[in-house]
């Protein structure tokens, strides 16, 4: 841009010391408006215009690229891209093109605003938010008159029934919210183990092998996960059921078990606890075989499995429910009843 087109004042105002003012606190007012290059040089303005549209065009191309890469790249194609390493070609292309498309719109808009849109200074004065005294007094006056005329203080019956009706209105909200879903009723009280009885026990199935287990398979210090017989991963409601039925089996040397009742529910030191945290229901099985603590990864509730899964730390409100197990005549581990309490987090109807 030719220098001679710049306003003289621009250069003259540079580097001058500001002369000390007679009143240092006086409002200096707005500085004089200075035009931008694009304001005075039509060629510069044209160039800025082209730059802005170029960015918008790039954005358009990038969007087309986005759609194209969605079609072109197979979902499992992995490519090597220098500083990042091996990445999915599809992810990379989608991210890059969408990023460019959005960035160019933003950058174009900013460039447009800075070079071409009006840049006249507009002072906006700030005012106190509160109304002036006259208005306030008036409002207070009106309120007092209203209160006096209504006789609110005097006519107790009206007042009390009004309060009553206001208090009852929110109840309609409760009715509406009640529609959000049926209460869980008894569904949370029982698990897939509920059909087990001493006469008709349910075998414990190892989640790894899908086979029933013998007592001697569970050694001291080991951890095994189990589900009730009959629950198959191919079942439609498998996920719903396993969320309640999941067991962790540990074996603790009988002399280390502190809770008598818990030892009796188990068999020869093998204890079957629910895997579902009683806080908000995360699966817990961070089992430490030396301390016999089981930790919940969500909010760090810690249960002492040697002491009836008592809560020794954290927000959980109940010990982990324990399943009563024994062995059948062939030596396989079986459950003879449901958990002694509902598994998982507390709920309103929990007994």
């Amino acid at each position: 841009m030719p220098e001679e087109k710049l306003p003289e004042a621009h250069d003259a105002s540079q580097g001058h010391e500001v002369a000390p003012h007679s009143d240092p606190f006086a409002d200096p007012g707005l500085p004089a408006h200075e035009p931008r290059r694009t304001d005075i040089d039509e060629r510069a303005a044209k160039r800025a215009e082209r730059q802005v549209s170029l960015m918008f065009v790039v954005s358009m191309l990038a969007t087309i690229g986005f759609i194209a890469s969605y079609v072109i790249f197979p979902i499992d194609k992995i490519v090597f891209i220098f500083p990042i390493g091996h990445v999915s070609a599809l992810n990379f292309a989608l991210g890059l093109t969408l990023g460019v498309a959005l960035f160019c719109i933003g950058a174009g808009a900013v460039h447009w605003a800075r070079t071409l849109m009006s840049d006249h200074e507009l002072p906006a004065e700030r005012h106190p938010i509160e109304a002036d005294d006259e208005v306030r007094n008036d409002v207070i006056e009106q309120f007092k008159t209203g209160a006096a005329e209504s006789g609110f203080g005097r006519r107790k019956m009206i007042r009390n029934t009004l309060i009553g009706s206001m208090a009852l209105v929110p109840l309609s909200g409760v009715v509406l919210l009640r529609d959000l879903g049926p209460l869980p009723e008894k569904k949370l009280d029982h698990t897939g183990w509920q059909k087990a009885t001493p006469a008709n026990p349910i075998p414990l199935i190892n989640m790894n092998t899908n086979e029933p287990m013998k007592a001697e398979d569970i050694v001291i210090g080991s951890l095994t996960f189990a589900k009730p017989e009959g629950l198959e991963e191919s079942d439609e409601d498998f996920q719903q059921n396993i969320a309640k039925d999941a067991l962790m089996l540990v074996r603790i040397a009988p002399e280390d078990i502190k809770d008598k009742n818990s030892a009796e529910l188990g068999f020869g030191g093998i204890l079957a606890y629910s895997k579902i945290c009683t806080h908000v229901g995360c699966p817990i099985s961070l089992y430490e075989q030396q301390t016999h603590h089981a930790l919940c990864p969500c909010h760090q509730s810690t249960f002492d499995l040697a002491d009836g899964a008592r809560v020794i730390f954290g927000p959980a409100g109940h010990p982990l429910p324990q399943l009563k197990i024994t062995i059948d005549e062939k030596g396989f581990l079986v459950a003879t009843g449901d958990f002694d309490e509902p598994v998982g987090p507390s709920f309103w109807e929990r007994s």
Partner: protein
Amino acid sequence: MKKLSARRRHPLAALVVLLLALAATGGLYAAFAPAEKAQADTSAQSLAIDEGKKLFAVGCSSCHGLNGQGSTDGPSLVGVGSAAVDFQVGTGRMPAQQPGAQVPRKKVIYNQAEIDQLAAYVASLGPGPVTPTKEQYTSTNPDDVSKGGELFRTNCAQCHNFAGQGGALTKGKYAPSLESVDAKHIYEAMQTGPQNMPSFPDTTMPEEQKKQIVAFVRHTANDEPNPGGLTLGSLGPVTEGLFGWIFGLGALIAVAIWVAAHTTKAKKS
């Protein structure tokens, strides 16, 4: 009988009797002599046990007792088997450098031959899990990775994280990252349940499944590409959130400052 007694006076009779007597004595000796002694001079295994015993006396007995019976400072090693020794010493966890919530992995101070000798000695104290062979932990079937992934998520992910990056436990203990751990050591850890890790014996997790888990862990740690680019440590929302807040928001703030600072307005003042 007649024949025998007829030859009793034969000049070689004495020699025959002598030979018979010698053979009988030797045979009886072989049958009744203390077996250990008889083997000691021949089998390489017992040599290793002897060497291991010496190493044990120097390096391990102060905590585990002179005969591996355990003491207040260390558990009994009777029945832990050679796999436990190979894991603990082979990853540098033993000898422990100081007592504490967790004995961390550190530089290995014995060579593999010495580790084998120690393992042989400890295995001689009582039966326990045996150091696995290479075939046991090296998988050749490509399906093993996906099967191992399922097993890993059921049995291991709760402590070691979905990508084997490890995680915190209670009171300063932690589940270590599995990233650069030897296939053999992963296998042994499942067999023996070191420190606070529960064990996964062959009775509840068959050998084949352990091999699959090892295959999966080695795959995620070594060759699995990361479709999104940066892994950010595969730690989940913590690092991802931190990255978003610092780099994502940081970039936005930087752009906002740049937009505001480089106007003609800003230049004028």
